[in-house]
Each structure stands twice: as structure tokens, then as C-alpha cells.
């Protein structure tokens, strides 16, 4: 590998990780899609359909994304450093990975919402979300697009949150996971506030969202960008001088 290739391998690694992760989890996503389209059909035999099943899948995907960010960095850190990568290169690779993964899942989320919209429309069902003020239909095609437009950003926020916790857990073997305490309520709260709803997960974690859900989507999106940037910087800072653990005999 020449010097220029060495200088850019971090980006190739990040893209490779995103591709490998999407390939690895493609059947999980396919299974989620099948469930989201099959379950409403079953429920419709007994009750009316008012809620978007896909929205629940997308929300589960956010938690899953946090696990992917945290799990990958926790696992890759010793492996990649031992393979001659610097911590800075790994941090950059994780950044590329997070952005590509979030864009891809955002696109899957958007496509699923539109497919579901057509599917629900064919059966005359209502595609809504369980908002704090009751069940709220997502709305027109433009509303659906606007609704889904924030998904890549939210996936990225969850990815950054998971990565911070993953690096911290490697760095401080017994205490790193405690970063869950400040990180999760912030990210979950912003998610709660953005959609004025409770994403899948323990509702009490998103209590911070109750104080800011009147801000409107623009300021909230800006707050999510800021939170994501802070989390990315924190993850990089924790990673940049982390020692590799001693091997257990």
C-alpha cells in the first residue's frame, strides 16, 4: 500500500464496515419488514389498523443502531490497533461507518414508510403514530417524506451514543457502561421531543423530551445535530489514547 493509500485507508475501512454490517444484518431487516407487513394483516381480522407498524420497526432500529455502534467499536478496537491501525484512523473509520449506516437505514426507513403508506392505503387503514396527544396520522406523501427526513439524523445520534458507550466500556472495563446514564436520556429525550411521541423503549428514559417538545422540529433537529457532534467528539476523545487491555492468560 502506497503512502496515499495509507492516508485514505480509514475511509475505505469505514465504508467496508458499513457494507459488511448491512450485508450481515440484511436478513434481520428483511424479517422486520415481513413482520411489519404481516402482523397488521393478522390484527386487521380482529381490530382496525391505525398505527404504523413500520414506525415501531424503525424505532427498534434506532436502538439496534446504538448496539451496532457500541458493539463494533468495542470489538474492533483491539483487533484494529493490533492490525496496525492508529486510534485516529479507527475514529475516522467509525465516523464514516456511522454516517453511511445511518443514511442507509434512513433510506430503508423512508422506503418502508412509503411502502407501508401504499399498503395501508390499499386496505383503507390509517398510518399513524402513537403521539403523546393520541394517535396522529402521519399525513400526506409530503408529510411522510418530511417525517422520514429526520431518520438518518436520528440513526446517527443513536450510533454516536452507542459508540461513546462502547468505547467507554472498553476503556473503563467495569464502569464505562455508566455513561448510559447521561447519554441515553439526552438522545432519547430529543427523539421523544422531535416526534412528540414515545419511541420504542422505556418511556421514562425520555423524560427530558417533555421539556422541549414545543420547540418545533427545526430547533430540535439543530439540538440533535449538536448532541450528535458532542457525542462524536466524546467518542473520539475516549478512543484517541485508549490503551489496549492486557490479555488474560
Amino acid at each position, binding site marked *: *500500500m502506497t*503512502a496515499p*493509500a*495509507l*492516508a485514505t*485507508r480509514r475511509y475505505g*475501512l469505514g465504508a467496508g464496515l458499513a457494507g459488511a454490517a448491512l450485508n450481515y444484518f440484511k436478513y434481520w431487516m428483511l424479517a422486520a419488514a415481513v413482520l411489519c407487513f404481516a402482523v397488521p394483516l393478522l390484527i386487521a381480522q380482529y381490530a382496525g389498523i391505525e398505527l404504523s407498524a413500520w414506525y415501531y420497526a424503525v424505532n427498534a432500529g434506532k436502538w439496534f443502531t446504538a448496539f451496532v455502534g457500541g458493539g463494533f467499536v468495542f*470489538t*474492533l478496537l*483491539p*483487533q*484494529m*490497533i*493490533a*492490525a*496496525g*491501525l*492508529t*486510534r*485516529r*484512523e479507527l475514529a475516522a473509520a467509525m465516523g464514516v461507518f456511522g454516517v453511511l449506516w445511518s443514511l442507509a437505514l434512513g433510506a430503508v426507513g423512508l422506503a418502508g414508510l412509503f411502502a407501508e403508506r401504499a399498503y395501508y392505503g390499499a386496505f383503507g387503514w390509517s398510518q399513524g403514530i402513537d403521539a403523546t396527544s393520541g394517535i396522529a396520522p402521519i399525513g400526506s406523501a409530503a408529510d411522510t417524506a418530511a417525517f422520514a427526513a429526520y431518520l438518518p439524523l436520528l440513526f446517527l445520534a443513536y450510533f454516536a451514543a452507542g459508540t461513546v458507550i462502547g468505547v467507554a466500556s472498553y476503556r473503563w472495563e467495569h464502569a464505562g457502561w455508566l455513561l448510559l446514564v447521561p447519554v441515553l436520556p439526552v438522545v432519547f429525550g430529543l427523539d421523544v421531543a422531535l416526534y412528540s411521541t414515545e419511541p420504542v423503549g422505556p418511556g421514562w428514559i425520555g423524560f427530558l423530551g417533555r421539556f422541549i417538545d414545543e420547540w418545533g422540529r427545526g430547533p430540535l433537529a439543530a439540538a440533535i445535530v449538536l448532541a450528535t457532534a458532542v457525542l462524536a467528539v466524546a467518542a473520539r476523545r475516549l478512543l*484517541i*489514547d485508549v*490503551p*489496549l487491555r*492486557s*490479555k488474560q*492468560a
Partner: protein
Amino acid sequence: MSLSVTLRDVSLRYGAEAALTGIDLDLEAGKIYGLLGRNGAGKTSLLSLVAAFRKPSTGRILVGGEPVWENASVVSRVALIREGGDFDDTETVKATIESGSIRPSFDTEYAYKLADRFELPLKKRVSALSRGKRSVLAAVCGLAARADLTMFDEVHLGMDAPTRDAFYKELLAEYLERPHTVVLSTHLIDEVANYLEEVVIVDRGRILQHADIEAFQGMGATLTGPAAAVDALGLDALAEQRLGGTKSITVASALDADTRERAAAAGIEIGPVGLQDLFIHLTDPNRNGA
């Protein structure tokens, strides 16, 4: 191109505990070094610093004349292989080998050739490998890294004797084909002694000795002959063996001319000291000045 290693006043602390103190060390490029030390002496800590697995508490570490810490052009040419390897246990052997290609010099074809030779099951998950096979996988990845500075930290401990022998031979063949700097950290001293050009002994976080192998062998001697004659020399033996009327002793000091003459006259054969015996003597906690 081989890489040299320079450490200047390097120390490493784990909290309040000093793992290494005041380390000054120069390793020339293109040689095979043995890194010896008792358990907890600081061998792994020292190698971890050279490979930038850890940052030193104080001091300077240069590899190939450049600082090693977070230096992509240097660390990409340095391989530290720890016992058991730094692998993702959920991956297959094949995926683990292929992940090595992040290193510019990694030779995947050679890795598969070695995997075949050492009978590594490519489809098996790393977590399902025996300790021995895991050691082999680590060694394969280390050899195939084709790094300019390759350090094996007790990698061969899990291997059985024939596999270790094959590993040493492959290591030597690779070294002859592509001269580079090799550091072997091991407790199996006598097994590797013939491959080493220089030896570094670490003891209680400090460099105790660093010399070429001949200098070490000249630090003592082995005397073998009739037991009574050997005893009559009155030497302080580090180790001794007896078989019938024949006795062999190891001494940790160079023999003076008079002793050599008396030994020769008594039919005693004088040979070089075993590195392991010397190591045991030098790192004896009860030894003055150690």
C-alpha cells in the same frame, strides 16, 4: 526494510504500580532478539509500548527513528502478536485471516498457505478453536503480516512441541527470505536460544542485561566430567546434573586460566553456559545486585 527500536528513559505505571522504570534500550534493525524475563517482569508491557498498544507514562519511543505513538506510517509496519491473538472470537478463522489485510504488507496468500500447513479449520469460529489452534492462528497472522518489526509475545505457548518446531522454522525461513526485526518473548528459552542473535533480559521493570548471544554464553560455562573431579574444582554451581559417575555443572562466571587448566587435566569438558540456566541465575531474587 527493517525497523530499529529506541527507548529513552521510558517508564510505565498502572495506577500506583510501576511496571517499567527508566528503560533505555536500542534494538538494531534486522536482527532476531530474545526478550526474557520472569512472570510480571515487564516483557509484555515493554512490547505493548513499542507497538503503541499503550502510551508510556514518561520517556520517548522511536521505531525506525520516528515516534511510534499514533504514527500510521510506522504502526502499519509493526506487528505485536500476543498469546491467543487479538481477534474477534465470533468470527471464523477465514474472516480473521482476511481482516489482517488492513495492514498494507499483509500477505493473504501466504497466510492461507500457512493455515493449510498448520491445519487450521478455516470455517470454524475462533471461539471454537483449542488453545493450541488459537496460538497457531495468532502465529499465522503474525508471520503473514510481513511487518518490518514483528514481535511475538509468548505466542507459541499453547502449541505442542512439533508445532512449535515448525513455527520456529517458518519464522527463520521468513526472516532469511525477508530480513526484518524480530522480537521473541518467551519462557521456553532453550528452544529458541539457537535462533537468537541478541538477548534482552527484563527484571522487575528494568533492563537487566542486553548483549549478543555469544556474550551471554561467555558469562558462564558448563563443565562435564567425572563427578569427583568436577567437585574438586570447588566451583559455585548454578545447576547440576548427575548420571552415574558423570556430573555436569553450570557456573555463572567466566573460568580463569588456572581453572581451565585444572579442568582439562582432570578430563573435564568445558562448554558454553545454557541460556536458561544463566537466565535463572541472573533473575534470582536472592542474587546480590540483580
